[in-house]
């Protein structure tokens, strides 16, 4: 009954499936991104208080959301590795860490650039900003921890434990603007549930950029995971055949 589930954990199947569907994902992402960015930057009306500056929201909000989503995903795959010992889950979790770290850095940087004109400061040590900075440190800590191990399995287990412990930070980030007094605004202003305050011309471009950024993330994640598969499965017959096929193609092109 659970055979399909463990079949999904086959690195070889992941490699061939992504081979087939990656081009589609790339096209959908480029489509969503180009529409969303042009719309958000040029076609949507300016905010009555923040003027043109609020256009930063179109990348700040989805990157910050994705930074947390990436952490949750990494923790889920870490749990999958710990519970069922699925190697592919650990490879995906490993790929999540550097992407998540860079996305968190983008969220912090765009937040600072937004904060200078609207708050008058690029940084305050409030709950939202500090907990997001902690998430950046968790990501970098997980990357550093893995590189400290010679054994792949010990590194994977240590990183999985750290990832799971760090999950406690996610609700703190999410609810920080409700639990504590802060300069950071709540999530209402771009929330899809609050349609009265947000006409479609505001949230529709955000929808496009949001899914475009999600596509970007998935492409980066798949590329990194595929590299990890090649490295860890290098002694298998199918990788040898794949390498030989690439070599033959290069020779015929040369």
């Amino acid at each position, binding site marked *: 009954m659970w055979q399909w589930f463990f079949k999904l954990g086959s690195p070889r199947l992941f490699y061939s499936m992504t081979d087939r569907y990656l081009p589609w994902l790339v096209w959908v992402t480029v489509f969503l991104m180009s529409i969303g*960015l042009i*719309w958000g*930057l*040029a*076609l*949507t*009306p*300016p905010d009555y208080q923040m*003027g*043109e*500056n609020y*256009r*930063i929201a179109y*990348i*700040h909000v989805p*990157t910050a959301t994705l930074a947390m989503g990436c952490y949750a995903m990494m923790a889920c795959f870490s749990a999958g590795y710990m519970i069922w010992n699925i190697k592919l889950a650990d490879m995906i979790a490993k790929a999540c860490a550097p*992407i998540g770290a*860079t*996305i968190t*850095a*983008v969220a912090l*940087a*765009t937040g600072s*650039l*937004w904060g*200078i*004109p609207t708050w008058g400061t690029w940084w305050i040590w409030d709950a939202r900003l500090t907990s997001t900075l902690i998430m950046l440190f968790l990501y970098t800590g997980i990357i550093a921890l893995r590189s400290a191990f010679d054994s792949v399995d010990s590194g994977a287990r240590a990183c999985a434990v750290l990832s799971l412990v760090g999950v406690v930070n996610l609700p703190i980030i999410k609810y920080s603007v409700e639990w504590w007094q802060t300069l950071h605004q709540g999530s209402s202003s771009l929330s899809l549930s609050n349609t009265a305050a947000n006409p479609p*011309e505001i949230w529709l471009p955000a929808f496009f950029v949001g899914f475009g*950024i999600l596509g*970007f993330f998935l*492409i*980066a994640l798949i*590329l*990194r995971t*595929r*590299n990890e598969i*090649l*490295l860890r499965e*290098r002694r298998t017959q199918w*990788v*040898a055949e794949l*390498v*030989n096929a*690439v*070599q033959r193609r290069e020779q015929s092109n040369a």
Partner: protein
Amino acid sequence: MPEFQFQSLSEFFAMGGHAVYVWWSYAIFALIFAFNILQPLLAKKRILRQLQARLVREEARTVSGFSEPDGGKED
């Protein structure tokens, strides 16, 4: 139908006096996302080269009957 919200292209680039913040935000975003795509693509080329070299080495070993002391683990 959404319309272009600026009077001219130069006003678009000025972003109502917030050009520095808006365009730097988008530039940082574009750079980091481009890095996240290009870095694994370059790494893949490097990995394939390494694996090719390893396959050639192994072939030579099976032909000559020579085996590495560590069983070829260190690569």
